């Protein structure tokens, strides 16, 4: 069994497993942190951004205009680019199946599917597909709102001349611009939706099955099994009770190899404390007459934020403050979350039987408290917009989308605040191109993924025979609370690694047909053991092996083949009785 690591980001994994002649890709996460090297794309031309001084290395005039400096840091003045999974390790046309664990780990799917000769099937749960699509659509929409004619390319050749952190960028020549709407549509067409506990057959050789991982709507861990071997792939699991259906462990036990990814990115922040801190910061800012910007993704934690914030503000007698949710997919996201009862936690699920909507945001929208808008130009936004207010908007990197507009609008006033809740981006880097900044900023990251201590407990419970994790999790320089411990052998990987996993096949399942079974006459050969000789014709179809009655050779037409194949029905052993 071989394992190919195509991504080095533990929370945006992409790897490939080769086993029993099947090639299975595990997730296709997109590393978005590359975006932070680029300047923000404003919706309306920004005088501040346009007047930033250009930065040119000595005697390299072709880079002129590609780089600009802001508050001592150099940024690329171009639409942001992304680092897709490594393409050189395997041939994507050989990928038979892609297993997607959650919508945050599928944003590179259009890149993979667009590879020449890709023929595989993508397996994802229905919410993963739908919300993943919303996220991709949002990315694309934001990008298309701020088109640029030119893409900076020259700087990539002069990496060695650039200041840090740009000079440390990982292979920028591999970076790609965002995919097109057609590429998204192609990717979505490849997806076969599955439910938790649904066993899918991969060429008869393997079975793959998702089970709930408790991280977000429709998030899944995957078991990949044959009759004898079981591999468990865990990515982004949570043992906390928020809105998604809780983590299911039963199917994950006793694996030959447990592949563990997507642990918390902010191990020193407790999500419960953070959501409390978030509400307090919002209320504090609003009371001071300021506005609050919450950069966020269009689904996921934002549901919990809204659910907690609305009653909290009511208690603080701030119920007149409007909550705006600005995203091209805001309405879809809110509506969609309320029709996914099967995928929700028990408490949310029982509401459906009343019947009441599982999330309160339907009520909040109906009552005018929460207002979803497609964008800032949408009908009614200018009329409804009043300050102070709370705005939930994308993109959390502050590089494009409506957040850029609000940063430019509110950044100069010390009463306002931006509150980061996404653990995906280092907030200081997000803010770097907006410096100097008068507005307040807070970091209350909410990452419900497993802590290291929770992961260690999970590993103890699941008792795998071997553990495979990103190298970051096993590095000895890590602090003790950020280290994985396991009683079994631990294998680690980095981007570009190819590993041989300790799984050796010894057996194959064989079905003996009814007719053949009837002819067998096992004799006892030891305590509790019976044996019979068996000769049969082997059929292999769809990787399934079946043994049937061998045709009896016609008595006369004896060929060498038939004669050599004829085997006696009995073996001779034991005491010889010679009278």
């Amino acid at each position: 069994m071989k394992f190919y690591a195509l991504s080095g980001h533990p929370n945006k994994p992409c790897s490939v497993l080769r086993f029993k002649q099947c090639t299975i890709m595990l997730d296709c996460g997109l590393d978005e942190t590359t975006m932070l090297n680029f300047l923000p794309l404003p919706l309306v031309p920004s005088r501040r951004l346009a007047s930033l001084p250009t930065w040119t290395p000595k005697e390299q005039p072709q880079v002129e205009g590609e780089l600009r400096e802001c508050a001592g840091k150099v940024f690329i003045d171009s639409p942001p680019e992304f680092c897709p999974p490594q393409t050189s390790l395997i041939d994507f046309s050989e990928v038979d199946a892609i297993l997607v664990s959650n919508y945050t780990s599928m944003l590179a799917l259009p890149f993979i599917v667009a590879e020449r000769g890709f023929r595989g099937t993508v397996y994802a749960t229905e919410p993963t597909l739908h919300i993943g699509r919303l996220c991709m659509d949002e990315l694309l929409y934001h990008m298309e709102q701020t088109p640029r004619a030119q893409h900076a390319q020259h700087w990539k050749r002069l990496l060695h001349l650039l200041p840090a952190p740009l000079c440390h960028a990982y292979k920028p020549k591999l970076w790609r611009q965002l995919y097109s709407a057609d590429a998204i549509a192609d990717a979505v067409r490849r997806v076969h939706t599955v439910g938790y506990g649904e066993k899918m057959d991969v060429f008869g050789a393997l079975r793959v099955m998702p089970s709930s991982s408790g991280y977000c709507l429709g998030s899944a861990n995957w078991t990949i099994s044959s009759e004898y071997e079981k591999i468990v792939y865990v990515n982004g699991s949570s043992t906390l009770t928020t809105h998604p259906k809780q983590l299911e462990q039963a199917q994950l036990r006793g694996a030959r190899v447990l592949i563990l990814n997507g642990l918390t990115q902010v191990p020193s922040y407790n999500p419960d404390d953070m959501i409390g801190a978030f509400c307090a910061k919002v209320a504090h800012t609003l009371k001071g007459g300021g506005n609050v910007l919450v950069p966020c993704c269009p689904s996921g934690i934002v549901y919990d934020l809204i659910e907690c914030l609305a009653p909290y503000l009511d208690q603080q007698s701030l119920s007149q403050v409007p909550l705006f949710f600005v995203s091209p997919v805001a309405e879809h996201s809110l509506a969609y979350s309320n029709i996914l009862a099967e995928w929700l936690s028990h408490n949310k699920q029982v509401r459906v039987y009343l019947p009441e909507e599982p999330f309160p945001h339907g009520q909040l929208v109906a009552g005018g408290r929460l207002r979803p808008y497609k964008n800032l130009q949408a009908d009614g936004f200018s009329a409804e917009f009043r300050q102070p207010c709370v705005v939930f908007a994308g993109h959390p990197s502050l590089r494009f989308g409506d957040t850029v507009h609000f940063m430019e609008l509110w950044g100069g006033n010390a009463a306002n605040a931006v509150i980061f809740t996404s653990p995906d981006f280092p907030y200081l880097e997000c803010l770097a191109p907006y410096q100097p900044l008068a507005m307040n900023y807070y970091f209350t990251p909410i990452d419900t993924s497993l802590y290291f201590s929770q992961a260690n407990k999970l590993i103890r419970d699941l008792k795998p025979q071997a553990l495979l994790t990103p190298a970051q999790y096993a590095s000895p320089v890590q602090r003790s609370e950020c280290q994985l411990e396991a009683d079994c052998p631990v294998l680690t990987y980095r981007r570009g690694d190819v590993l041989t996993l300790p799984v050796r096949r010894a057996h194959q399942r064989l079905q003996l047909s009814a007719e053949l079974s009837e002819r067998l006459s096992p004799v006892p050969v030891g305590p509790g053991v019976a044996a019979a000789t068996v000769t049969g014709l082997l059929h292999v179809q769809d990787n399934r092996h079946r043994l049937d009655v061998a045709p009896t050779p016609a008595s006369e037409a004896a060929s060498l083949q038939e004669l050599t194949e004829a085997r006696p029905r009995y073996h001779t052993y034991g005491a010889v009785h010679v009278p």
Partner: protein
Amino acid sequence: MPEIKVTPLGAGQDVGRSCILVSIGGKNIMLDCGMHMGHNDERRFPDFSYIADGSLTEHLDCVIISHFHLDHCGALPFMTEMVGYSGPIYMTYPTKAIAPILLEDMRKVAVERKGESSTSFFTSQMVKECMKKVTAVNLHQTVQVDSEIEIKAYYAGHVLGAAMFHVRVGDQSVVYTGDYNMTPDRHLGAAWIDKCCPDLLITESTYATTIRDSKRCRERDILKKVHECVERGGKVLIPVFALGRAQELCILLESYWERTNLKVPVYFSLGLTEKANNYYKMFITWTNQKIKKTFVERNMFEFKHIKPFDKSYMENPGPMVVFASPGMLHAGLSLNIFKRWAPDEKNMLIMPGYCVVGTVGHKVLNGAKKVEFENPRTVVDVRMAVEYMSFSAHADAKGIMQLIQYCQPKNVMLVHGDAEKMVFLKSKIQQELSLDCFNPANGETCTIVTKPTIAADVSLSLLKRDLQPVAEIGDLRVKRRKLLHGVLMVKGNKVRVLDSDAACAELGVTRHEIRFTSTVTLEDPGPVSRTIDKLHTHLQKRLGITQHLGDGPINIGSVLLQVSGSDQEDLKEAIVSWTYQDDALGSYILNSIKNIDR
């Protein structure tokens, strides 16, 4: 021989009160637990005493409910709370949400309006308690009931949340379809199942003899009739169940009213409806693709032209269209409206679904011109036009055959249909698909014998050796068929197939090597080497050996052929020796040499 035993307690050559007992691999499973709408006495519920005199929980391993119609789930609270059953119950999420509403509604009709003593019927609390015991399942989710029973639901399309269930115990399996629909309609998709090859398919056969014409035509037809009726000032009554067909008919009428700009009021009996539409909204993932796609922009279940009905509207003059529950005219609002409107020939009654025997709906459909009612004793003349619309979402004969072909069962059983119609479909299945087909009556047990296969673990080394297309046997290279030869070892419940040598080693058995040797005297003057050549040529002709072996002995596998004697003697001794394993080859060669001169 292992067998599957099936006994319908209801729905055997009958429609209503679906309840089928299946014994498979030592497990007892109940499929559906319905009530009969046509009866008011103990025949209403299945005869649970048939299962066991004592506790049902001990005898039943699980209960599976296919969908929320009362003839499939109506007896469930009675069974769990009054007879007593606390084992697992499975149904889909929408069924779990909607079934208690319908049960409660039916309970009210039965207890309050008919004035039945509450002791013979379950209470609201019992419905709630019963639903607490239910485990909701998702489509295609493989649910492990216990270590042996595995169930999996498939989309059935009949109503929201309707499912077919695949039940597997060991290597035996049964598919129960519940009610299903093979053609997508306005709000639901078509039933689908994969090629799961069960030992038995238990399918409904409501429309066993019907081949329905195109759906569009039927819709046009019914809309035309409604239009004509309201134009001449008549009132149209459409009895429906609050959930299911009702939603599809509403969508149909809504779009027709929109298109034709009709101003005649359309009403829907209040209460259940609003809630029902809410359920449809929240379980929209169980409807069809089109509704799913557009639900954010436009919710199909919010109607502009259809308004809530008030009882007082019944007396209003002028045309109107009213949807009222229940669907079989056996009680409640629809029956009240019917009594009021039936005597006027301007009016029209559209029955959009099947009616069980004994209901007013069934009588009227069969052309009854007078319907008698008890307490108070009245006779209602039926002068209104009565139209039956084969609209209810069951598979027709073609659909049933199609499903059988999808899932490739080894046997078929028909339930939930009329006895005579079943006979027709049964012969069709036997002739066209050459499958055994059963249609037991209620209480009659069918035994289906299954052929067991044995699952064994075969070592990869043996598999690889015997899968080699070419093998070396002694000096020979022989082309091989995929013939596997080994030893089957049974230890506890572990079955393995091993290479003979490996098996012997594991068992600590030393095999005796037996060698047979036989001498044939040949009359063949000349040098010994010529005799060997002659034998070789002979065997070459017979067996197609290709090697030239020179002067030495001839080796074919373990068979050794030697010639002794001197060049001068006329008689030569041919010695043939072979091992027990190669007995067939050795005997053949020996015989062949004996008869060399013939």
